[in-house]
């Protein structure tokens, strides 16, 4: 089972906290990869919040190509961060792991956010396409205040490999997922968490309805709905589609992926809307055992379960620091000082959120709509 460890806090912390939490959940030989996604960056990046960050991996040639492309598009590099990679047995080192901070092209500096987001998305997709054949360029995210690291290997070993223990890299929100996708080919693009225009999510489980959902998303005409080396990437895109494209409040994500039964809708004040959504969005109903943890552009984090609650998941913490873990032992490691009796184990109707700066945990119940 994939291991999930997300932490949101009011203070900056090192992603090693997530990795140590992942380590407590390790079972057997499930160390086939790790993805880290950091939001609300601290340390050196705290002053660079407004600059979009391009995170990825390149070969030496790929890096030259990438720089040439970005320059031609008018992006001016203001800072580049590279992890201090240490050789670790079992991890095949690539030429360059990077997070490049750019200034927007002059003609886009004053553009509204939505236009800037479109530009960043299209740029990322173009880069991805450039390097797809020979894997010379692999890009995970391109967005302000978000940094992504991914590699194949054991999470703890990868923490050492990337030199994360030095504390240079910090953030207020970190999503970490251990173990690669096992249903399809092992591929860096199949590694969670996934990101699109401010929305990130990771999952453990199997999305058995992957194919019709993928077909539906790809036919929406949204350029970013592509890739799908992992069946879990659709969860991120459904989140994006729900909130950004349709403009629905976040809680309706739950109503779309795991809709209530018709008779259960009767108790909800917004039943008329739910009935329409049930019909119009039925291709996005997920299935299989899935625990999804994610964040939205405003820094809210959430955990949601499949309609039968076939996966474990726990949320707990203290004011100023909450963690979302696929197992409770991860919580014990991440926030040992919390009151365990207040831990939340989201059940099939629950949608658990923690707002930005982690002031509190909120449980929204789908049955009641409250």
């Amino acid at each position: 089972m994939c291991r999930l460890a997300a932490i949101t806090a009011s203070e900056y912390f090192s992603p090693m906290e997530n990795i140590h939490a992942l380590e407590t959940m390790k079972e057997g030989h499930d160390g086939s990869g790790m993805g880290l996604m950091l939001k609300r960056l601290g340390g050196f990046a705290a002053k660079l919040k407004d600059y979009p960050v391009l995170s990825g991996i390149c070969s030496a040639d790929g890096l030259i190509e990438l720089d040439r492309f970005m320059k031609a598009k008018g992006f001016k590099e203001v800072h580049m961060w590279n992890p201090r990679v240490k050789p670790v047995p079992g991890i095949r080192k690539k030429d360059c792991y990077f997070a490049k901070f750019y200034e927007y092209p002059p003609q886009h500096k004053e553009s509204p956010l939505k236009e800037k987001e479109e530009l960043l998305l299209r740029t990322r997709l173009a880069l991805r396409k450039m390097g797809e054949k020979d894997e010379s360029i692999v890009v995970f995210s391109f967005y302000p205040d978000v940094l992504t690291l991914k590699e194949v290997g054991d999470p703890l070993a990868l923490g050492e490999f990337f030199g994360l223990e030095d504390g240079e890299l910090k953030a207020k929100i970190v999503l970490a997922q251990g173990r690669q996708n096992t249903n399809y080919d092992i591929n860096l693009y199949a590694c969670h968490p996934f990101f699109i225009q401010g929305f990130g999510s990771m999952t453990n489980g199997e999305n058995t309805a992957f194919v019709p959902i993928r077909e539906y998303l790809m036919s929406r005409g949204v350029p970013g709905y592509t890739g799908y080396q992992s069946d879990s990437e659709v969860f991120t895109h459904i989140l994006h589609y729900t909130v950004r494209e349709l403009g629905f409040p976040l809680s309706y994500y739950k109503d779309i992926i795991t809709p209530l039964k018709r008779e259960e809708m009767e108790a909800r004040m917004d039943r008329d809307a739910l009935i329409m959504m049930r019909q119009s969005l039925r291709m996005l109903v997920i299935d299989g055992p899935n625990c999804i943890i994610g964040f939205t552009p405003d820094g809210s984090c959430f955990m949601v379960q499949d309609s039968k609650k076939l996966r474990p998941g726990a949320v707990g913490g203290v004011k100023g620091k909450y963690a979302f873990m696929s197992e409770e032992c991860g919580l014990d490691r991440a926030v040992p000082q919390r009151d365990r009796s207040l831990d939340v184990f989201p059940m099939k109707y629950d949608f658990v959120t923690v707002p930005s700066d982690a002031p509190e945990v909120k449980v929204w119940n789908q049955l009641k709509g409250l």
Partner: protein
Amino acid sequence: MEPVKGSLDLKDKNHQLTLKEFPYIIRWRDDRCTRCGKCTAVCPVKAIVPNVRVERVVSSEGPSPMPKVTRNVVSIVSQVNDIDRYCTGCAMCQFVCPNAAIEPEFNPEHKFLQFKNKGGDPYKRGGRRNDPGPSTLDKLKFTRISMLTDPALDAGRHEFYLKTFLGRILPPENLPLKVENGKLVVDKGQDVFVPPVREVYPIMIGSMSVGALSPPMWEGLAMGVAYLNEELGMPVVMASGEGGMPPRLLKSRFLKYFILQIASGYFGWDEIVRSLPHMVEDPAAIEIKYGQGAKPGDGGLLMSSKVLKLISSIRGVPMLVDLASPPTHQTKFSIEEAVAKMIQSMSMAWGFRVPVYPKISGTKTAKAVLNNLARNPYAAALSIDGEDGGTGAAYNVSMDKMGHPIASNIRECYLDLVKQGKQNELPLIAAGGIGKKGNLAANAAALIMLGASMVSVGKYLMQSTAGCLGDENNRCNLCNTGRCPRGITTQDPKLYRRLDSSRVAERLVDVFRAADTELKKIFAPMGRSTELPIGMSDGLSVNDRAIAERLGIGYVC
């Protein structure tokens, strides 16, 4: 040409057929037969007759052989060699025989079609395509099984959503919703037409008309449908076929479980229109029949012998006249104009509260129809009826040689909708040969995974609820004659009294309950329970490369 007369006529036996030319040969056992006469009485085509023959018996008595020949006249049962009274293999003789003395045997070397055109009249029959081989649907397997990577679902314990939507569905971007205090509410200020949508069971009962079916058969199905809906909570709907419905039913609260069909003869619609002001419920939908999979390009036909009092009153025609529907709607000039108008007229009749959809026969041109309907916001669905669909009456050549298989037709239409992003807007209804080999749930599930939103089934249900005898070896298939030996497709009280409508209803409920369990048994290991696996083609495979490639599914061997 004048027939040859005189002595030559007596010697020429070439115009007579041997029994080897016949599709079924009667095996009658002299030693078991008690001469009760039940078989000859029951035979719907009089293919067997009581007869006499002279038997030469050689016997010997006494201590040394003294052969003595005697000639006895004995009564027997014999098969006639008149092509108009060919044995259809229905086996009603065997069914009524108290002593297992008689049975028809299929003759694979028959030359039936070489002769069954007397008077220049091609062979007509009921049933469906005479192809005993397995269909593409029966070759498909469900191969993506979740087991060790993740827990599979339990068909017996978990909840499954086995329902679908019938009706035009708005794309989410067009829903008239707005956010108020963090909640979505319907924005009544937006001038958006929200089409009617029904939540129904994904297997519907396909169009079989009140005239084609006998009163107990139709009643039985209708009662079964009411029971499934009201007692078991399974929203099964049933299509009426052409020819309307009994006025009492039109004005009853049960109308909501029925789909009214309008076809090219418009039979029954006088009564339906007259009943409109008295309807207490809307029908489930309106089906506009443009074609039928079993006989593409052929119109409907209800034989005069079936047009008795009830049928003539429902259809608004005199008794005992042949009721032929033209192969096409006479008002149909173009799909752009006439079909759109027909859909709108039907919608308007019920105040746009009822889904209206066309049904066409499977065809290479289905995508053209589909694309037209995809752009028509009032088109509620598209029903495609494949070549293995059934019919009450058609030319044999239409049934055996015309038509298009359903599997690739549905698949290409679904993928075309996917390309346009409209796969959830215009539901596809697949029909034609579902359950041909008895695999109702498996065939239905396969079609759903190829992209159908629901399936429509007729003949399988006739066979399983009323014991219809027809098969793909041309057994029985007498539906067009009004002489149905089971009492299913006849208006003759002497025949239909053999059928108990309560039993039909009971069997229908059995069939749906069993199919429901089987669907769960298919969907559970594949991990789909919260929604139907529409378009979940990765779950399907086939051991035929050409089929795999055509349908865009996996090849396994």
